[in-house]
């Protein structure tokens, strides 16, 4: 039984380590700034504006070009946004914040899908 459990844990760790390249420090700093922008927009501002979306998209495009980011990084961003969207949905239903998170998720999924189509 213990061996079986150990095996499962090892498999899981193996699965997670596949995403290790995503955690490269040089990406992480810029991506963290972008994530902070997004979270700020979702959690702090009550007004819906496209300006911040286009600004962050521009910044992200710069990162993609500069650091040769792949779709994987974009989808990781999606997972983070999804996490916040779920939390917002859990506590406030389809509030403005949840909707803003959903729009961010849409935007990054779109970017990731285009990156995926272009790269492969």
């Amino acid at each position, binding site marked *: 039984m213990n061996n079986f459990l150990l095996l499962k844990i090892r498999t899981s760790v193996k699965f997670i380590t596949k995403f290790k390249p995503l955690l490269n420090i040089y990406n992480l700093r810029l991506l963290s700034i972008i994530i902070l922008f997004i979270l700020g927009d979702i959690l702090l501002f009550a007004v819906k504006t496209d300006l911040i979306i286009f600004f962050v998209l521009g910044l992200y495009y710069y990162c993609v070009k500069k650091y040769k980011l792949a779709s994987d990084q974009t*989808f990781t961003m999606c997972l983070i946004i999804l996490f916040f969207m779920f939390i917002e*949905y859990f506590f406030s239903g389809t509030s403005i914040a949840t909707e803003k998170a959903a729009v961010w998720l849409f935007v990054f999924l779109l970017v*990731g899908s285009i990156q995926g*189509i272009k790269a492969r």
Partner: protein
Amino acid sequence: MKKTSLLITVITIILFMLPFFWLKPGEMDLGGDSSRLYFYDPGDYLQSVILYGYAPTDKGGETTVAYALLPYITLLFLIKKFINSPTFLISLNNGVNVSVAFLFVYLTVKEFLRVEGIGKDFKITIAAILAGLVYVFAPYNTYGWDRVIFTRNQIFLNPLMFYLLFKYFIDQKKIYILMFLILTFIFSFNFSYFGAPPFFAFYPLSLLFLSLYTKYIVKKTVPIKGLLIIGVIFLFLQSFHLIPSIWGILSPGSLLRQDIVGDKTVFSAGLDYFLAVSPSLKVSTSFFNLAQSQNNALHLLFVIYPITIIFGLLLSKKKTIFLISFFFLIFMFFATANITNVGYSFYRYLFYIPGFRMFRSVDGQWGFVFLFFYCILLGLAWGIIFNRLKNTFVYIFSIYVVCFLIISALYFIQGNTIRRILYPTKGVSPVIRMDPVYEKALNYIGNIQPDVKLLSFPLADGGYQLIQGVNGGAYFGPPIDSYIRGRNDFTGYDSLYPFNDKFINAVYNKNISSLTSVLSYLNIGYVFYNSDTYIYNDAFSNYPYGYVTNYMPVNQEGYKKFIEKLPLDLDKKIDFGEKYHLYPIKKDIIIPHIYSTTNDIYSSNPAHSLFSPEIDGLFPSVIYNVSDFRDSKDTLILEADPISPFLGIKNNYHLHKHYPFISRSINSSLYPVIVLKEQINLLRKKKIYDVFLDYSLYVLSKRILEINESGGMTPILKKSIKPPSVLEFYNPYRYSSWEASLARYESGMNTVIANLNNSNMPQNLVGKYKIIINEQLLQHQLKLIQIINGLTASESDKKYLNNYSDHMFARIAKILDLKDADPSIIHYHLELPVNTNGDEYQVIMESQNDAFDSSYQKYIEIGGNKLIANANNDANKENFGSIRINNRNIDFTLHAQLKNLMGDSQWESSGKADTATSSSVLITQNNFGDNSGGLIKKIDGWLPNRQYLISFEYNTEGNNFIFKLNQRVGEQENVNTFFDKNLNSTSWKSHQSVIASDLKSKDAYLQFLPGINNRDMHNMHIRNLKVVEVVNPRISFIRRTLQKKAATPKIVFTMINPTKYLIKVSNVTSPYTLVFLDSFGSNWRLRNPHKQDNIIWKLLIEKFFGAIGSLVEKASQTGEKKDKIIASYFEGNVLETKHTNVFLDSHTFDTIGKQVVAGDRHFLVNGYANAWYINPKDLDGKTNYELILELKTQNIFYVGLFISLVAFLSCIFTLIMDLFKRKYYNK
């Protein structure tokens, strides 16, 4: 059988069987806007609705909607031949929807995974199965199975068609596309004009996806040539409904054309609808694959879907999932229309594309397509993830998904989805078991002559019918006798148009003569009365009987008494049990469906003139619209147009109170931006004054209310200033001061008034807008007084602000310059048709209410003449004698004293009051402090649904008083306050208020109260207090016929089918009008069957199709005698012979290419019907001849149907040949 195949088969069978447990034997869900009566009796439904391009309801009329259902309903009809159970048929249909949907989502996902190269493993199969189950049990899919519309079949058609196209693109085998084409024919409605929304939502983007997938991922050639051929065959297959629809779209003035390109439909029924529903569309809900507006704690579990999709995208090494994800996001964009402000605006602008209106219901039209792509993406993501997981994980995950799918879809699995309680009841199910007694009544109605119309009671608001089932459920949908038995039934107020208002008012006023005329002119032969209290009680009072109950009897007892007063042949009444009753209308009042007349009357209001006693001696007659006047000497009935500022004020709109949302106070740094934005919006709305005024008044209300939002921090400059510009915001003390706000308000009001004064609008419209502005000024003034006196400021500041405000409103009122209206002088305008000036007209005024003071002599001033009403007038009309009118356009005035309703009733007061009369001065002295007190006086003779003008003069000696008007409404006698206005003057000042009483108003009271800051004893003086009803009586100018009329030709008509009539005309000596009492339709044609216009048509179509027709005729020969007379009207002048209902025989195409008679003289008459003005020379001067009246679109349908059948049979033949070849080669 392999393990996988066995599992799929078992799941498919379970899903197929599931709906068979939803309904107990004999139960049916048949209701809804379009109903599902085709399950109840597909054969009769075919006959009544599908085979003819004719609407079987109320006034009839042309339609091309139902043709597209022909193959599907025929299929149901054939199935029902073997299984004679509507319950089974409904369950079968639902079973096919659920099981086929699952199967083809599964197959599609499996196919994608196969192409990805990971499709062989069993756990991959599980991913595809789960995707199929998610599709079937998705919340979006599990709701809405009750009252479904025809295009609902897209649930299974989308996956099925996508799979066939997918296989064709990848394998490029003919068999898939042939099956695709055959299915498009069977389910034609989803490919018709009315099925356009799901079609355009799904197919264009799906084909684009498949093309990109084939070319860039599978690396195969896109079969463009094949697709073009398929497109052509598709058009051939759909010819039977597409050609009539295209004909309708190209016909100027047709409803179909208006539906696509009409400005009103694009913006009123399209964009407006979208703007109303779009705020409720949530992107987050779509991500969780939930239905919009449904919330449930369990729905949080759906987060597993987006998580696994993202993991699938992360793990994928191939392009397929990214391409699917890309298209999934496109569909999501359309399905929510709320992705960023730019995206929202983009969707809004799409409404400028003709036809985009069909996507106004965003979720409804894009929902199924989005769900399909969601499931494909999910299936693929799960396939990719499962490929990397151990079997145990896959099984655990699958059990988890299946469990929460089943739990979340229990409502669906248990069949509650088709038993959603009927709105607005609390427990009436839409599932019914048909009452055999009602079926008996239905059969009886089906056996009375087909060319007869019925009126059903209780009358509903729209064209709905309610029938109770024996299981306690109720059918709620269009009339069953129309859809199943093909009898035109008037079931709702709307369906009685253009006589609907006339009808309900006649019921309310117990005017049996008008009711009789409505029954006659609508060609109604029977009244069907459902006396069941279950379907006419409080449960349904709001809907569908909400509006009509203001006029019609409120309960079944009342209905029974009302029906007895109608002109019915009560001796021939037929009772079906205790609930259903059929009453024939008295024979002498029935006007035949088709008749001829030489009594042509022209009227500016045909729908009203039909009831005018002036036409009594001209029976049978036809009333043309005066715009079709032929410069003849026929009778003219011209109604003068009243010119009154009060006419345009409907539903007390002028009293509307704006409640703008104040997002920023005037102290906010963002305030200048808001003011600027409002200025830009005002500029954009400047073109249409109505819109400009509405928005201006909204903004100006904001100017008043926002002062209150600054929390008493608004500076007071104590000097007047000009409205500060946006650039002055750097000086907040000045920019946000009281004076600045009021200057902005004054400037805004002045602009509104200046725009009005500078417009070219007629004076009555200017007057109307001035009344609206004045009412808003009074509201704003009172609000401002309340704000000022509620301030925590010094008394001197308050006094200063009160003074400032009083002066400002006085200045605005001076600019507005609203003159007191004198309702005793009513202005009119009259326009005569060409060449009728110089003729003599009799002037008649209809005065159906007693608003006038009978002691006063009424007179009309017209062209320098004074016409005095004759003394011996009857109760309903007053004769002003005759006058020769020389000008085509003439203005005149009616002078009549109106009764003052402020009679002798005493003032009720908690203070001290002297009794007022209209001439004496009333001095009131009060010291009350609450709203229930003050001086109250009842208005005598107050009636519901009337407009009143209240006028008086007042002097408040500089103090504030509140003037209120209250009414008591409904059985509960709830008190409504129309308005409260502040009165303040130091000298005598006049005041007028106009209001409309509620439909259920009982009585009304005037009330005067001390105003704000007026707690001490003060005097208020009132004089000349009057309350009069505002009336604009109908004044008609009648020119009697100036020539002796020739004898009316004799008519014998036979209905061949609802779209074709044979008319035998005899004794024609002069021009006459042939009237057809059916909704006007431009495609009705009158043809001479004995004169050929186009020989090519004769050779090509008549001979060929005639041969087919004669074959059908021989097969269905009944040997019945067709010329038997079944009814006689107008002393035998119009005879009706036994009707037939022949869809196809050797004579069906006889009229193709035959001469069109009076094609350019086809008119809308009697307010709704068809008429042709026929000259003897149209038929070469013959006195006896035959005419065929037919609907042109029906002939077009026959041609289209032939093309479609040839294409369909060719597809079937090719498919059989292909299958045969495969079998042969396989051997």
